[in-house]
């Protein structure tokens, strides 16, 4: 029975490949847009998690684990560490905890860009959100095995 379902999944597989790509690109756009437009680490992270979830739905668990060999629990810790270190780093220079710094740089492709330390903080949130969403879903999915 199961094998029959698998065999007819060609449509789902092909669409998943394209749609996941679009979703991931859009989530990364949302992540970087957060400073001046709606978006940011939280929504970007959720969007990435949903893109990865689509992959889990389209293919089987084993194959995705091979493609994405992350331990999501460790990823939560990495995200927290990145966010906390952005806060602590301003303390090293004698400023209060979580002080933000920014400056303008001339980057090769993007032109003059504002880079701020809010971005690594957002990256921390992004990682935590992706990892927590996937940890919850995968923990429930793998529960009965």
């Amino acid at each position, binding site marked *: 029975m199961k094998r029959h379902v698998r065999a007819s999944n060609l449509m789902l597989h092909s669409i998943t490949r394209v749609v996941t790509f679009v979703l991931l690109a859009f989530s990364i756009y949302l992540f970087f847009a957060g400073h001046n437009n709606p978006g940011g680490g939280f929504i970007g992270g959720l969007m990435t998690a949903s893109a990865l979830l689509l992959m889990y739905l389209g293919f089987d668990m084993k194959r995705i684990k091979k493609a994405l060999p992350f331990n999501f*629990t460790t990823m939560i810790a990495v995200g927290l*560490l990145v966010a*906390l270190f952005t*806060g602590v780093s301003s303390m090293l220079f004698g400023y*209060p*905890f979580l*002080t933000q710094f920014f400056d303008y740089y001339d980057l090769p492709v993007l032109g003059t860009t504002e880079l701020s330390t809010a971005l690594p903080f957002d990256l921390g949130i992004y990682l935590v959100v992706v990892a927590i969403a996937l940890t919850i879903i995968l923990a429930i999915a793998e529960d009965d095995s």
Partner: protein
Amino acid sequence: MINLPVFPIVIPALAAIIMMFLPKNVRLQRGLALGSIFVTLLVSLLLVHTVSNEGILTLNLGNWPAPFSITLVSDMLSALLVTTSTLLTFFIVWFAVHYFSTAYEENYLYVAMMFLLVGVNGAFTTGDIFNLFVFFEVFLISSYVLIVLGGKGVQLRESIKYLLINVLASALFVMAVAYLYGAVGTLSLADLAQKIPLVDNPNVISVIGVLFIIVFGLKGALVPLHYWLPGSYVVAPTPILALFGALLTKVGVYSILRTYTLLFDVNGTFLQTFLIVLAVLTIITGMVGAIAYNDVKLIIIYNIMIAVGVILYGIAVNTQTSLEGALYYLIHDMMIKAVLFMLVGMMIGITRSGQLREMGGLITRFPLFGWTFFIAALSLAGIPPLSGFFGKLLIVQGGVGEGDLFGPILVLISSLFVLFSVIKIFLNGFWGEERRQYDGPLIPFTNRLLVPVCLLLAVAVAYGFGAELMHPYITQAIEPLTQPELYIDAVLKE
């Protein structure tokens, strides 16, 4: 070092995050947990020292000016409570190292304990009412993890109740903050204190005040909002129970103390009567519960309610003396409840039963254990040289000074009930004959487990004997409570 107030929050958080990388390495977890809490303890002692020399320390996170940023405020009250909670967590984690099996420790036990400490220290330090809510959630979510960890049937049942009631309380908290923001338009405690007297309709503020009592009463188990407490605490494993019993309800009490001295004008209004009635009801219910049960854990759990009621009575009277008494008693009670919960947990671990009629004769086999319990019991009841005495004395004096007789007499009678309930444990559990052959899992570890308990008890006894030395610190901690201008000026300095 301007960042001093943030260290008691950041250090345990950093340690907890590092521990998440290697959940299976139990030795690293233990070492890192104990080491980081010890460093936190040193930093918080430094904080007490700095505050006593330089007055209230404030830190505006992100370097934004005061009412617009999250301000961390370390006055002496919060510095003392941060030190106490860190000290307790240190000894409780030490106890947990010997108490739990490796299977327990591998499932992020210490990570959850450290985040609980982060939440509690943050709630004591923050100067912003919404940030207080966030830190409440930090330690509540850790407490959900800790209460369900182990996955026994009763734990699952009680954690659902605990979770439901706290989700409800948190929703009410958000609503109360929303009303307050709607009425006043700011969230910083100092700014609120400055602007609340200017609000046109004082009845709105009274309603919000009552709503905050309901919220913090649900966290701190005031009657009639206490019904979740006995069931959910009794199923938690001993070190977790000690952590909860010593810290969680006391954060609710601290929040009442802070908001009611700073934001709401209590003296002579109906809010004062309301608080006194709640305190009296809490003491009476705790007294009834403490003598009604024969289960050692439940007896101590109902003693939490008596203590919360007594402290709340001190807060409600709201004079210099009674507030000093409330703070003395709060610090004493945090330490002694942790000691007692660890001791009764050991009794259960040795006899395999929580019922007093199935115990007896423990003192012939474990004399040190028995006498430790005896001293802790006397200290809890407030026998003069020990730590519970001065707090209650000042609370009674404060109450009598305001012309109230019923409250002080009730506080004194409650001491008798407390003494009766813990001496009942001592007489039935430690004296007499052994009822049967005890074969509990903790027997080989008794001496190792007693070390942290005895050290914590020694600190509590020293706190009682050194009450005179503590007095300047307590007085300094009360200053911003009786004169809110000090707090407001420190935060909103021009």
